[in-house]
C-alpha cells in the first residue's frame, strides 16, 4: 500500500482536472429555472398586432405549446429567427411569442420584415410578465404541457441542434 503512495498527488491532480473540465462545459449564464415542473405563471396580455384582443394562459390550456421571448432590440433573436421560421413551418408545436419590453410599431415591423413564426405574439411592454416567467436574457424559450406546466426552458437563441435534440423530442413526448 505504502508503495503506491507516490500516486496520491496524481490522484489529486486528476480529481482537480475532472472538476475543471466539468467547469469548462458549464455556462454560468444558464441558471437552472425553478419554474420547471411548476404551473406557468398567469398572464393576460393583448396581442402585439391587436390591442383589443387579449390572450391569457387559460386560453392555452389543453395543448402543448412553445413560448418564445423576443424583442425587436434583441440581436440574438435575429440569429434564432430563421430557425424558428423553419420550425414553425413544420407545424410540430404552436409557437407563441412574448414581445418583451418592446413597442408595438417596432415589434410589428420586425415581424413584417423577417417573417412571423408565431401563432400570436403577446405584448409585454413593461416586462412584468417577463419577470413572472423569470426571464433575464432574451431570447428564452419555454415548452408548456397540456396541463399548463412548464416542462423545459432554453436560455439564449435556439439552434437547429437545440430544436432537434431538445425541443422536438420533448414536444413529441408530451403529445405522446
Amino acid at each position, binding site marked *: 500500500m505504502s508503495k503506491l503512495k507516490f500516486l496520491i498527488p496524481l490522484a489529486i491532480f486528476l480529481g482537480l482536472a475532472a472538476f475543471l473540465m466539468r467547469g469548462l462545459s458549464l455556462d*454560468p449564464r444558464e441558471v*437552472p429555472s*425553478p419554474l420547471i415542473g411548476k404551473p406557468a405563471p398567469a398572464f393576460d396580455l393583448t396581442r402585439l398586432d391587436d390591442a383589443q384582443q387579449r390572450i391569457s394562459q387559460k386560453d392555452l390550456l389543453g395543448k402543448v405549446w412553445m413560448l418564445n421571448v423576443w424583442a425587436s432590440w434583441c440581436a440574438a433573436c435575429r440569429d434564432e429567427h430563421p430557425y424558428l421560421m423553419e420550425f414553425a413551418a413544420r407545424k410540430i408545436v404552436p409557437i407563441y411569442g412574448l414581445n418583451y419590453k418592446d413597442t408595438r410599431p417596432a415589434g410589428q415591423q420586425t415581424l413584417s420584415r423577417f417573417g412571423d413564426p408565431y401563432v400570436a405574439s403577446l405584448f409585454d411592454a413593461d416586462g412584468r410578465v417577463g*419577470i413572472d416567467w423569470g426571464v433575464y436574457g432574451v431570447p428564452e424559450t419555454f415548452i408548456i404541457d397540456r396541463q399548463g406546466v412548464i416542462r423545459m426552458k432554453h436560455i439564449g437563441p435556439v439552434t437547429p441542434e437545440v430544436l432537434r435534440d431538445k425541443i422536438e423530442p420533448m414536444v413529441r413526448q408530451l403529445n405522446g
Partner: protein
Amino acid sequence: MARWILPVLLALAMGWAQAKEAAPAAEDPVLEARMLRITAELRCLVCQNQTIADSHAELAVDLRNQVKEMLKRGDTDQAIIDYMTARYGDFVLYRPPLKGTTWILWFGPGLLLVGGLAALWLVLHRRSRLSPDQFEPDPDDEAANEPSSGKAPT
C-alpha cells in the same frame, strides 16, 4: 481589495445621497433604504457579479421598482426574497440557503482547511520522531563542523 471597498462604498453613498437630494420630497427615504438593503442581497442575473442594488441593467432597474412596489404594499422582506427565488432560483441569493445541494458550498472550504491542517500536522509529527541522521545536514552545520573545508577569506 479591502483598501478599495471603503472608498467605493463612500463614493456610492455619496451618489446616493445626491440622488436623494434631487428626488421629489414625496419619495420615502426609509422605504428607499429598505429597498437598497434587500436588493443588495440579490444577484442581478444579467451581470452576475453585481447586486440588483448596484446594477444598471434594465432588468435590475425593473426589479428595484418591483421591490419598492412590494414594500409600499406592505410585504415583508421574506416575502420579497421568496418572490425572487420563485422566479430565478436560489442563484439570486448571495447567501444561499443551507440544504442538501449546498452543503458542499458552505462546508467545503472548511473541510479542505481542516484536511490540509491535519495533513500538515501528520507530516510534521512524523518528522519530529525521525532520528536526526535521516535528514541531510543543513549547509550551515556542515560549514561549522568542517571549518577547514571552507574557503579562506581573501
